[in-house]
């Protein structure tokens, strides 16, 4: 996959959707492409995170450690992003991501990402919008869940 295709891939992700083309290219160029071997752990719940991964090819399992043991909560595949919270704020990884068959991903380093944001308030505003709508969704879901429970 060439740089141009990587840029397209990034554009498909809501977080980066509104970024200007040169910025997005710069983000792609300053990101490393990383191959994970079958069975590899991309990130571990509770560890400190310094990068988000955009999956280029292959599949990954998102697993959450609960008192009841490990539960697979989601599957990620090409075009999806994992670990993006870590490049915005310092929180431990909230889930473990493993790959059974191996996968290739674009590793977006936290520092590079923040640096890009510094130079472009437009992008920052877009990200705020994305995050706000996510919050709104979560709140709506919570409201529904609460009302469903009280009923």
């Amino acid at each position: 996959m060439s740089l141009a295709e990587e840029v397209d891939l990034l554009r498909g992700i809501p977080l980066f959707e509104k970024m200007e083309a040169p910025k997005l290219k710069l983000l792609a160029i300053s990101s490393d492409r990383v191959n994970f071997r079958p069975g590899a752990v991309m990130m571990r719940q509770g560890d400190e995170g310094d990068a988000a991964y955009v999956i280029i090819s292959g599949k990954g399992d998102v697993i959450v450690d609960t008192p009841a043991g490990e539960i697979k909560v989601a599957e990620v595949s090409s075009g999806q992003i994992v670990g993006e919270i870590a490049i915005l704020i310092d929180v431990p990884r909230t889930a473990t991501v493993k790959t059974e068959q191996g996968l290739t991903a674009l590793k977006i380093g936290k520092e590079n990402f923040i640096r890009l944001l510094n130079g472009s308030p437009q992008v920052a505003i877009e990200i705020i919008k994305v995050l706000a709508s996510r919050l709104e969704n979560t709140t709506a879901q919570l409201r529904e869940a609460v009302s469903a429970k009280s009923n």
Partner: protein
Amino acid sequence: MDRSIYGFIFRHSKAQQIYLLLVTFAAFPFIYLQPDLVKTIVNKAIGGKVSDFPKDVIGFEFEQVAYLVLMCLCFLVIVLINGAFKYYINVSKGRLGERMLRRLRYNLYSRVLRFPQPHFKRVSQGEVIPMITQEVEPLGGFIGDAVAQPVFQAGMLVTFLIFIIVQDIYMGMAAIAMFPIQGWIIPKLQRKVNALGKQRVRAVRRVSERISESISGIEEVHSNDASNLMRAEFSSHLGRIYQIRYEIYHRKFVIKFINNFLAQFTPFLFYLIGGYLAINGDLSIGALIGVIGAHKDMNAPWKELLAFYQQYMDAKIKYEQVVEQFDPAGMLDEDLQINEPESIPQIAPETPIAAQGLTYQEDETAIPIQGFNYQFKAGDKVAVVGPPGGGKEEFPSLLARLLFPTGGRITVGGDDLKGWPEAFTGRRMAYVGSSAYLFSDTVRANLLFSLKNRPVNVPELSDNEANEREARLLENARSGNSNEDFDDNWVNYSVLGASNPTEGDQKLIDILEKVELSRDVYGFGLRGPIDPIRRSDLAEQTMEARVRLASRLSSDNLGDLIEPYDPDKYNDNSSLAENLLFGTIVTDDFDIETLGDHPYVVATLRTVGLEDELLNIGFEAATLMVELFADVEPGDPLFEQYSFIKADLLPDYQTILTKWSKGGAEVLNEQERGMLLAMPFKLIPARHRLGLITDDIRARVISARSEFRANIPADLASAIEFFDPAQYNAAASIQDNILFGKIAYGEAEGPEIVGQLVDEIVDDLGMRREIVAAGLDYQVGIGGSRLSGAQRQKIAIARALAKSPNVLVLNGAIDAMDGRTRNALVERVLEAAPGGVVWAIGDPDLLKFFDKVVEVANGRVAKETSGNGMEN
């Protein structure tokens, strides 16, 4: 050391000085023959009357022309003799001066090695170094002249004086009438200049001290924004020197003025009084001219004498100012260092070591140790504990005799330690302080430092080398320097239980394991190059490891972690430059960054028709970079990490691109083409993923690769060690030789997995110890700066263990290490120490390893317990 410079000169060079004087006097007649001959040639040979010829010269008759030829030949011979004398005298003086200077420097340095330890708190390096190096430098010149010059000039003066007095005593008296006045007034004026000279020496010393302090404290200067203060302070010191210097000039030229005036005052008297007498007919004009001529002749040596006097004063000040700095009280007796004792007894483990009424007072403000009594056996493992400043630090230093007690004593088997030579304290005992100083040399040389007490034997030498060695030692002796040759074998391997350097390395590695350093040194070895001829076994094993790693990678399905160097394949994890070069650069003369500028490289690209394509790639890459980085701030780290173009060059590239898009590649000049060509050379396809390196380009680079190698000019050929799958690459590290390829970009955990595999293979092949041995060649840097603090301390402990001391004394010495390492290291060192250990230690967790614990507080023994905490 002699207090006066003439004391020093006569003590060490009396015979040579007298010899020089005799030779000088032997030259005397010839010097006066020369003008005499000239006179003969002019007056007799050329201006002679015909009737005077033929002339009789020792029985032969000469006509005028023949006589002229004879006299001219004589003149030539005299000129040659004079020149030869001058040459011989100058060389002899120079040699004498240099030998004496060498002796002086050696004595001064030797004294530094005997300075009492606390003295180093008061003198700084910045003061001591210029004293030994620069300040004494002019003394060499003076010493060569010290006797011959004044005696010779005085001799001339007296000769002339007698000559004149014989002719007319009054004229003689008149000619020297001013000498007493000059002789009286000049030293008077000179005295003030001398005092200023002393001040100047001190002020310059202060300056060097300040420079050395600024360098040592450079971090503090930066972190406190104190550079302006430092500048101002430095200025004020320089200002002081300027003032002194100016004052000196002032006075020096006043002296010169008076001197000249007095010298001309005599002729003034002659003309006035002599002229008056001549007019009155009391003196013939011929006699007057004679007196004036005589005075002129005498004035030359007299001036020389005065100049010598000033030179002497200068040298005297320098000498005295230096020497007084090298005579601190409490200096170590020379015999304790220089003389090798007949036997150096071992200290048996049961030998009692006792501190009796020990007192140590460094200055008035603190009394760290007083009335200190403690006894233990030489084989005991003793921990010294206590609050800081209570004497815990001083006791080990006193025990290792780095400090001398100011009262009381330390006895070993009943003998006072004070009188033991350093051959004993330095070999039977070991001391490790917390500073752990390393010399700028290899790890090995630092470890062996404790075994280089005396030359062990002379290495095998050719006749020529043996003669040179003899000559060297003879010259050393003539200057009173060391009578031991630095090029002899100094390392006493037998102390290690080894008989040669190879066995010695193995023993050192054992010790490194005990201090937990072998892993680090293994890393130095693995990441460093070796000489494949000297270490042929290791090179062969490395080649075997290369094969094994390749098969391991393919059998474990890990082949994509390393992309091997294949002469027939383009390496996607290397830059285009590396692909073209396909080797390791050996010299510092050129580097891979500037490869595109090399004319041969450009020519090669042209031959294979790659130049245009690469220019196109350069254009595209530059276009992309300009697009991406146009808005990025110049200082942004993104530039540093990801841009091929430095921020300040971005506008230049913009200009080139504009030029290109208007007129095509043809309109670019050589420099602009070079700038564009530089871009593709940096491209690493696997990393940059720009898709610019096509398969066609790859194929052509490979053909350029063989073209490049086939016709390479000699200067480049010697600068590159080419990759060859079947050959050890001497310019690359052991690790790179095993990998023989690039670790692939973007493989998660790739480097870690490869590292583990290399480790495994190294162990399977039994190479580890050899690699550690190769790591012993690692240069530690100035003061060990290329090592961490913990590594330095470990080497210092290993160095102490290497000499198998009967008593190992440690003062802290582990504070740069982490808790786990300390624990392991203390246990192992106590186990490995062949004799007793006395260790001033801060960490209470470590006391469990010791037989005895002595607590020192307020300069006294506060408590003695056994190691497990039970009171005795």
